[in-house]
C-alpha cells in the first residue's frame, strides 16, 4: 500500500490543480484573474510565516553555524538529484542527466550521503529541474497565477508539476521502518534550512510598496527563466506620451 502513497499524493495534487481554477471566479485582470483569492491566501501565508516559519528560521540560525547549514542544504539538494535526473531525461537533456547522475553518485559516496559537495569542486555543477519545468519545455502554458495556502505562489501547470514530482521521484518508493516519518522529518529540516537561507530575501520582499505584486512578477520571471523562456517585458512596446518629451 505504501508504495502507492507517492502516486496517490501526486494524483491528488494534480486533481486539485485541475479543479481549483473551476472553483474560483475570474476577475478583470488577465495577468492575475484570481487576485482577490490570491491576496487572501498571500496574507494567510504571511501570517503563518511570521508566526511560525520565520521564528523557527531565526532560532535555527542561532543554534547552527554556516558549515552545518551548508551540510543540511547539500544533503537536501542531493536527495533532489534523482528527480532532476528524471526530468532531464524527460526533457531530452541527456548530457545534463548524465552529469546529475554523476553528481548523485559522487556526493552520496565521497560526499558522505550528500552532506558535502565534492562534485561541484570537480566541476560537475548542480542543475535543478522539476516536472513543472518539464511540462513548460513541452509547451504546456502556465495558466493563471495562483497562491495556495502553505504551498505559496504557483499556477496550474506547476501544481500538476508538484504532483508529478512526488510520483516521479525514485526516492519516494523504497519502503523501510518509519519511512513516512523519516521522509517528513527530512522535508521539514530541508524546509527550515531553506527558509533560513531566505531570511534576507523575504525581508527585502516585505519592504516593497506592494509585496504581493513583487512576488507575483518575480515568480513569473523566475519560472520562465528556469524553463528557458526569455521573460518578455513590454517596455519597448510602450508608446511614449508627447508630454514626456518636454524637458
Amino acid at each position, binding site marked *: 500500500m505504501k508504495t502507492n502513497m507517492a502516486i496517490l499524493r501526486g494524483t491528488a495534487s494534480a486533481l486539485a490543480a485541475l479543479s481549483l481554477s473551476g472553483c474560483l471566479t475570474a476577475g478583470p485582470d488577465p495577468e492575475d484573474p484570481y487576485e482577490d483569492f490570491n491576496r487572501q491566501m498571500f496574507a494567510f501565508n504571511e501570517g503563518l510565516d511570521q508566526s511560525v516559519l520565520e521564528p523557527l528560521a531565526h532560532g535555527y540560525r542561532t543554534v547552527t553555524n554556516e558549515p552545518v547549514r551548508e551540510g543540511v542544504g547539500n544533503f537536501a539538494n542531493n536527495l533532489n538529484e534523482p528527480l532532476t535526473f528524471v526530468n532531464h531525461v524527460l526533457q531530452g537533456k541527456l548530457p545534463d542527466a548524465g552529469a546529475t547522475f554523476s553528481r548523485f553518485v559522487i556526493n552520496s559516496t565521497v560526499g558522505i550521503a550528500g552532506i558535502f559537495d565534492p562534485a561541484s569542486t570537480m566541476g560537475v555543477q548542480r542543475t535543478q529541474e522539476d516536472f513543472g519545468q518539464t511540462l513548460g519545455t513541452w509547451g504546456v502554458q502556465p495558466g493563471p497565477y495562483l497562491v495556495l495556502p502553505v504551498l505559496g505562489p504557483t499556477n496550474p501547470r506547476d501544481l500538476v508539476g508538484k504532483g508529478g514530482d512526488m510520483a516521479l521521484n525514485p526516492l519516494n518508493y523504497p519502503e523501510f521502518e518509519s519511512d513516512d516519518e523519516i521522509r517528513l522529518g527530512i522535508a521539514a529540516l530541508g524546509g527550515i534550512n531553506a527558509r533560513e537561507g531566505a531570511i534576507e530575501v523575504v525581508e527585502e520582499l516585505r*519592504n516593497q510598496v506592494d509585496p504581493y505584486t513583487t512576488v507575483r512578477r518575480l515568480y513569473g520571471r523566475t519560472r520562465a527563466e528556469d524553463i528557458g523562456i526569455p521573460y518578455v517585458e513590454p517596455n519597448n512596446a510602450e508608446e511614449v506620451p508627447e508630454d*514626456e518629451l518636454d*524637458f
Partner: protein
Amino acid sequence: MKYKSALAAIAMLAAASPAAFADKKSEAYVQANANSVLSVLNDKSISASAREKKFGDYMNQFANMPSIARRVIGANAQGLSEPEFQRYYKAFETYALEVYQVHFDQFRGEAIRVTGSKDNGAQRSTVESLIRSSTTGKDTKVYWDVLLSKDGTSYRVRDVGIELGGSTLWLAQEQAAQFINYLDRNNGDIDKLIGRINVLLADMEARKKDGRGSAYKG
C-alpha cells in the same frame, strides 16, 4: 532604370526600419553620465549625506524624475491636483533615489562600457552597456531607455534595465506595477500610497541608524 529601382528599394527599406540603426549620440550621453553617477557612489572624499545629495543631483540631471513619478502611477496621475502631486513627488523622489542607489551600488567603482544601441523611433533609443558587478564579479548587461527631447537638444533616461538571469528587470516598470496595483487596491487614494512610501522610508532610515543596512540588496 534597374539602378534607380534598387536605390528606391533601399531607401524604402531604410525608412521602414528605423529600429535597425544605432544612436551614437544617445550612447555618448549614457557613457558620460552613467559613469558620473556611478563615480559619485565611490567618492570617499565626501560624507555619506553629501554623497546622497550629489547622487540625487546627478540623477535629476540624468533622468526626468517628475516624468518617471507620473508614469509609475499610470492613469492615477491625471486626477491629481498640483499640491497632491508635489506631496507625492517629494516622497517618490526620496524613495526612488534610495532604491536606485542600492541597485547601482553593486557597480560601485566600476566603469560602464557602452556596447551598442537600438533606435526605437525618432525620439527614443535603448542603449546597451556592460558593467562589472562588484557583488558577483561578473559583467552585467544594463540597458538604458533614453529619450531625446521634442526640440532635439537634450537627452534623459526614462528607465534602466538590469539583466538578471535571462530576463531584464526594468526598475521604473517594476515600480509602476507595484504603485498602480497599490493604488487600484486603495481606490486611487494617493495619500495611502504616500503613507506606504513614508513607512518604507522610515524603515530605511532606522536601518541606516542601527547599522542593518538597506533591505534592498539590488
